[in-house]
Each structure stands twice: as C-alpha cells, then as structure tokens.
C-alpha cells in the first residue's frame, strides 16, 4: 500500500514533478485513510468533488511546492459550495456561496481541500468535545482529546490523513491542540492573515494559521496564507517575505526570555523538566536565556472570558434562522422563532458564552467589565513590549499538562479554560506564537514548546523552532 502522505511535502512534490504520482493518487490515499480512521472523527464534511478537482488541476508546476497537496480546512472557514457547519446544529445545512480569502489563496496555490475539519462548536472549547458532531480523537491515544478548538485539524494531520491543515486561534486553539498531538502550529500576528470568511467568534482575537508536521512545512504554508486583504480592514499591509528564510540558522547569541509564570507550579512536572532540558540545550548552543518577571499574565484567562464572550455574544446574534441555517418551525411569533431556533441550534457551551457575554455588555457592566478588560489588555501588550525591548523571543511550555482523557473537563467549564492559561496572553497582545513538539512524556504523549515572537516577527520564531525540532 502506498504511503506517499507520510513523506515530507518536498518529497511528495518531487514525485509529482517526476510524474511518479498524480494529485489524484494523493487524494485517493487521503480519502482511504480517512475511511480507515473514521473513528478519529477528524472531519465533519468530506469534499465529494475533490477527485474531480484533483483531475482538473492541470500540469504540475515545478515551482509550486503545494501543487496537488491535500489539505484540511477547519469548519469555521467558509468554502464555496462545500458545507460549513462551525460544528453546530444551527449551521448543519449551511452551504456557503463564497470562499474565505484564505480558501481562495490555497485554491490558487492548487492545494486540494479534502474536507472540513471537526472542531469545538463555533470554536468555543479546549477539547473539541463541544462539537455537535462528537469529539475528534487524539491519534496518539484515542482515549484522549485532541485539544481544541482546532481538534479535527490536529487529528487529521497527526493521524496522517492529510499533511496540512488550517486552524484558527482565538485563545490558543491552534497551539494547544498542536501541542497535544505533536504538531507544529502557528498563530500568526493578528492582521497577518485575512479573517474574511472566518466565521467570527471573537473578532479582535481570531486569527487563522497553519498546522503541520514540520517547521519548514508550517512556514511554507504561512507564506501562502498571509497578505493584506481589502475585505478585512484589520489585515495589515507588509512587504512580502519568506518565512522559511531563517530556518536552520544558528541560535548563537539569540536572547530569549522565560517568564517565571510559565515554569511555575501550575505546570506539570514532567513538562517543566522537558522545558529545562530545552533551555540547557539552547544555552549550550550559545543562546542567552533569562528567567524574567512578567506582570498580568495570570489575568489573561479572565480577560479572555470577558472580551471573547462579549464579542461572541454579538457575533453569534446573526444565527437567528431568518436568512440561512436551521430555522425552528412551528413558532407563532418572531421572538418564539428566535428562541426555538437558537435554543435548539446552539449547544450548551455556546449558549453559556452568549449569556455570559450578553451579561458583560449589559448596562453598567460594560464599563465595569468590558472597558476595564480592554485597559488591562493594553497593559499586557505593554508588558510584552517591555520584555521584547531586551529579548528576541519568549518561550515556555504550550500547555500545563499533556492531552487529558476524553470527558474530564466536560463538566467543569471553567477548568477547561485553564488548559489555555499559557497560550491566551498571546492573543491578548496580538503577537505571533508557535507550538513545536519537544518529544513525549513517560506515557508517550507529546509535549509542546511555546515560542512567542515580536509583532510580525514570525521568521525568528521559525528559526528557533527549526533548531529545537532537529534535536527533540
């Protein structure tokens, strides 16, 4: 049986250029693996036109690394004519009539969308268990969660079903599942990648990014995704750059900060130990690493709960059954229609967050909570900037623990947020950050190292990550 998908995309690309395989072979292999691993529940919808699309790709372009490579797209990114559910009942019949900007970009790069990856409903969750379609499983241990909310993307790549996936990260939703499944996951700087076509959860935090098996593949895919988009006013204009350009460069002389909070007792011992091993290695290689004090990091989860919920309560108001999606029948009044549609359409976690968000914005609460949270958010950003005056990067573990067993955070919604305590501060400051695997723990479960960079300095993150990837 063929195992092309286990090769690096550079090698796959050579085979395609040499006409030893065709894009259709890759698609067939991917579809076969998805079928054989149905229990992973990585996909919500398979693109039933992907074979045809593979056949119609035309002549292989030797300069396009991504020609014919299958990719999974998280199901909160709209795809024209391909069902996009956000893992919610309320959109389970929703077929978009336009492509998200990133989808246009991956189509231009001739990648093949195999299907829409499972996720937490509307990206609200840390384990992907809030999906209306059931949780995806962690391919490294099927009793465990993939993390979330980009759990399906993580499961699909870690399970070898596709080599590449798009995830989205509002409060760690790319990096945390990447850490739990041993992948490289990048949340780019806010504004790097257009959000047009990403179904908004928390608009000021959401960002789309690549989830891959290697640092090189990750940075190459980011090359494709970025760029100012006139349809997204929060996207930024930057000179074109090659994010792979610093990969493999010596880390000698790099200045790296390690905030005390990131190695405090909230982090699992085995993970702390691994981070220390990474630090010794980097020191050996000539990097300067200092343990630093950073304020406000511990407020990030609370800020997230205020800012993200508030924005979500407004963003999700449009799902009302009037124009698209599932509409409850047998309602006598408009209000009853809203209540029934939203009551049946949304799951518990989504409803909880909408209610909390509405409460936060109500009357004087907006001042007490929301306005104050925005101020503290500015303080976090300033705090990061202070550190970045003296350091190139900030590192720490991506998560406080390895992937937990399925079901254990389900009954404690607050505890679920604590999975993201280390990754959320980054979203508050809009910074780029990546999780790179640094081996496994004694149970064979992956551990991720979190690398945070300066605004728009993804390339330096990839430089450090590539050095670590070589050894761990």
């Amino acid at each position, binding site marked *: 049986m063929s195992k092309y998908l286990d090769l690096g995309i550079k090698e796959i690309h050579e085979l395609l250029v040499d006409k030893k395989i065709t894009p259709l072979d890759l698609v067939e292999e991917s579809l076969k693996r998805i079928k054989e691993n149905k229990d992973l529940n990585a996909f919500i919808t398979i693109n039933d036109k992907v074979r045809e699309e593979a056949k119609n790709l035309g002549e292989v372009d030797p300069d396009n690394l991504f020609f014919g490579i299958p990719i999974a797209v998280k199901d909160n990114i*709209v795809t024209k004519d391909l069902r996009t559910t956000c893992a919610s009942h309320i959109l389970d019949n929703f077929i978009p*009539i336009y492509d998200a900007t990133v989808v246009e970009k991956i189509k231009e790069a001739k990648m093949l969308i195999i299907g829409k990856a499972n996720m937490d409903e509307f990206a609200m969750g840390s384990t992907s268990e809030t999906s209306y379609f059931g949780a995806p499983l962690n391919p490294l241990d099927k009793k465990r969660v993939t993390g979330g909310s980009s759990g399906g993307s993580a499961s699909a790549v870690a399970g070898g079903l596709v080599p590449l996936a798009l995830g989205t990260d509002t409060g760690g939703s790319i990096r945390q599942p990447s850490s739990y499944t041993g992948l490289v996951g990048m949340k780019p700087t806010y504004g790097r990648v257009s959000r047009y076509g990403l179904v908004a959860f*928390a*608009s*000021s935090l959401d960002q789309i990014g690549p989830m891959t098996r290697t640092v090189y593949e990750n940075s190459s895919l980011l090359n494709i995704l970025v760029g100012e988009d006139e349809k997204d006013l*929060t996207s930024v204009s930057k000179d074109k750059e090659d994010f792979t350009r610093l990969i493999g460069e010596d880390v000698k002389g790099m200045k790296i900060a390690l905030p005390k909070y990131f190695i405090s007792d909230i982090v699992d011992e085995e993970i702390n130990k691994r981070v220390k091993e990474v630090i010794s290695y980097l020191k050996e290689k000539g990097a300067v690493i200092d343990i630093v004090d950073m304020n406000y990091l511990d407020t990030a989860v609370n800020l997230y709960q205020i800012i993200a919920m508030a924005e979500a309560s*407004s963003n999700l*108001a449009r799902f009302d059954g009037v124009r*698209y999606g599932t509409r409850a029948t047998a309602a006598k009044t408009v209000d009853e229609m809203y209540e029934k549609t939203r009551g049946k359409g949304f799951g518990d976690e989504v409803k909880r967050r909408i209610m909390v968000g509405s409460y936060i914005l109500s009357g004087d609460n907006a001042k007490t909570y929301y306005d104050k949270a925005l101020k503290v958010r500015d303080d976090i950003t300033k705090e990061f900037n202070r550190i970045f005056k003296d350091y190139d990067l900030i590192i720490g573990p991506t998560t406080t623990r390895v992937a937990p067993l399925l079901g254990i955070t389900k009954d404690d919604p607050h505890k679920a947020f604590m999975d993201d305590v280390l990754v959320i501060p980054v979203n508050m400051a809009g910074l780029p950050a990546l999780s790179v695997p640094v081996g496994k723990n004694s149970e064979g479960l992956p551990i991720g190292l979190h690398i945070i960079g300066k605004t728009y300095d993804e390339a330096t993150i990839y430089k450090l990550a590539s050095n670590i990837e070589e050894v761990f």
Partner: protein
Amino acid sequence: MSEFTPTIGIEVHVEIKSKSKLFSSSANTYGMATNTAVNVIDLGYPGTLPTVNKEIVRQGVRTAHILNCDITRRMHFDRKNYFYPDNPKNYQITQNRTPIGRNGYVEIEVDGVKKKIEIEELHIEEDTCKSAHRGNVSLLDFNRAGIPLIEIVTKPCIKNGKEAMAYLTKLKELLFYANISDCKMEEGSMRCEPNISISKDNNFGTKVEVKNVSSIHNVGLAIDYEIKRQEEMLNNGEIIKEETRRFDDKQGKTILMRVKETGNDYRYFIEPDIPYLDLSDEFINDSLKSLPLLPDELREKYSKVGLNSLQIEKLINNRSLNDYFLGLLKYKTNYVTAVNLLLSDVSSYLNKHNKVITDTNLSYEKLVNVIEALESGDLSNKNVKDLIDSLMETNKTLEELKKEFNIENITDDSFIKEIISKVIENNTDSVNDYKNGHDRALKYLMGQVMKETKGAVNPKMASDMLCEALNK
C-alpha cells in the same frame, strides 16, 4: 392653561448620497427591484466583514461642517445589539461614543426673531432592511440594508411646532444644497422623529416620541397636537407615560404605537472589525473643498445682484434653476429680467414638459440674447411666449427664430403715430386721468396701442412715443 413649558428635541435620519453602501460595495440606490442591490455583507452572511466607504465619511465631515459642529478627529464605530428581523446581523453598526460631529447649531428665524437650534451630535450609521407584511408572512428587502444614514440629534431646545418646522426646513435646505442627501421625506430619505415633553418647572417632563411623520408641516402639527394633548392630560391629573406615537395626518392626531419598555439595553461596544479612523487635516480640507454654495451664501449673493427676496426664495426652492442661474452670473446681463424669465415662461415650459433646465437647449448665450432683445424692445413678452418652445428645444439662434416666426416688430414712426392718435382720440377719459396724475391710465393706453397693433409693435418705441404725444 399656558403655565406648561414644552421641551422638544428632534432626531433626524437622512440617507446619504453615495455610489455604494456604507460597509459594502453594493449600490446605494432607491427604487431598484427588491433584493437586487445586495451582497453577502448586506445579508450578514457568516464570515463577512465590513469595509468603510470613505466617501461617506467625507459626507459626514461635510455635514458636521455645515451644521457648525466640532469634527471628531479620532473616531470608531460601535455595535448596537438588538434582535429584529430587519436587522441582518442583529446588531447595527453605528457611532455611539465618537459621533463624527458634536456641539453644532442651525440658525433659524421665526416671526423675525433669530434663534440657534443647538445640535447635540451627528453620527454615521447603517440602515436596516425594509420589511413588508403580507398576512401571516413578513418579507424583507435587503436593498436598504447598509444604506448610509446620518442621524442628527438636537438638544431639547425647541419650543413649538413653528420652530421645529423652521429648523427642519433649514436643515433640509442645507443638506440638499450640500449634496449630502435628497431629503425626500416621501421616499424615506429624510425621517424626522420629534420628542416632546412639557413641564411647569425646570425638571423635564416625561418624553413622548412621535414617529412616521410624513412631512415637515406634519411635524409641526404633531408637535402642537402633542403639547395640547399632554397639557390636557396633566390638567386632568393623568400621568404621561414614556411612549412612542405615530402621527395620523387624516385625523390630525398622534396615535399610540408602543409604550417604552424600561431599560432598553443595546449592549454597545466598539466594533472590533473596523479599526479607529484618524481624520487628517488633509482629509477634512479635501472633503470640504467640494462643498457648493449654501443657501445663506446664495441669498447674500443674489441680493447683491438686485433680486428681491421673493425671487431669491423661489430660486432657492428650485435647485436646478438655481444652479443654472448661478452659472448665468458669469455673464453680464440684466439678472432681474433673467430671473423673471426663468420663473415665468421657462418654468411653465419645464413644468408642462416635466423637464429640468439642463435637459433643454437654452444656452446662456441664447438667454442673454433674449434678455437684450427684451430690453431694447426688439422682442415683446408675447414674442417670448410664442418662441419659448423653440428656444428650449432647438439649437437655433434668436435671430434665426425671429425670422422663422416672422417677428419683425413695427418700427415705422408714421404708422405708430397714426395708431397713437387714434387711441388718444378714442380714450379721452383716460387721457384726462393721465393728465391729472393717474399713472395707471398710461398703462391702459399703452395696452390699447398694443391691442391695435396686435402686439407687433416695438413696445419701447411705442411707449416713448405715447408719452411724447400725451405730454404735448
């Protein structure tokens, strides 16, 4: 019973003229087939994002300027959250905390007394869908969704219907002349909502809002009715509730629509999809450059060229004639004759054929020739009436038309003398009247001369000769 003092404020919404909508590229039009000026953004489709139409911000700057407001230099948009089927996202993008203009005024004159109506603020926002109800079914037209509006809010400084009408008339004239809006109340491009309370002391009374008022005149009627109604209620010991009423122009009454629920909570917060806008001096100056002359400037200008106030007001009331006349000021001619001609024969022609002057062939050169001929007596008023259709419709010169119509006024001295002697002979009473100082008799005698010659005599010549004969 006049011990109550009324306090009135008015909210005015006007639709802004622009090529496209406020946050999308759909056309900003009125009267197109239902749901044809619509795209995914107007529909509040999942994943879509707003973009800001700069031309509309310029219109906001112009409006703030002409209403003497302070222009807000750093502003943002806010979300106003409420559920209603005509509200596609279930939030409206508006400006809550940073309206584009603040602290302005409009100067009015009522019964010879000048007064400044103070403007609290004006802001830019998007319109909702238009809904139509057919039996059990409600239908939505998204053409109107996202149409740009400016809302102008006065301070509660209006005292009666007359002041309100004067304010609205002035406001309408300003916005219309500045090309901000068509201000057609019948098409809904200008909507006025007065709120009225009355009180015996310095504390404001309970506010009643009146909606659906179809004309400025009716706003005045509605206000005066409301003052009377509230006075009667209070005198009868009744309590006024905070409510919304509509004006029924057939009955001349306001009618209850709904009682305001307490604590209408719109959960405002800053629109995270639109970055802050910083208006530069350059942007503001650029926006104001294209402002045409406004009515008060025109009044001054016209009064200087000798028009009386009746002529001035008639001209300003007819925008296209006004603009035409403004162009005529570049030519040296008798402007009073010109305006009389424009307001009489030209206007009747235009009304009869339902045309605007720019649709006709009445060039400035031709008009100047006609005025000269009238002055010199080569052309009589009756001649103009005969020629008007051809003057307006053809490219022929006045000379050519005179030939074609055989207009050759009698300039034969002896013939005119003969007629005059005959008229004097037959009208001895009038001649005596004239000699006794009754100037009206001259007019009558002149009329007789014209009658005898069937209007074909050079009127200036005839008049001079008649006077000469009478004064002998």
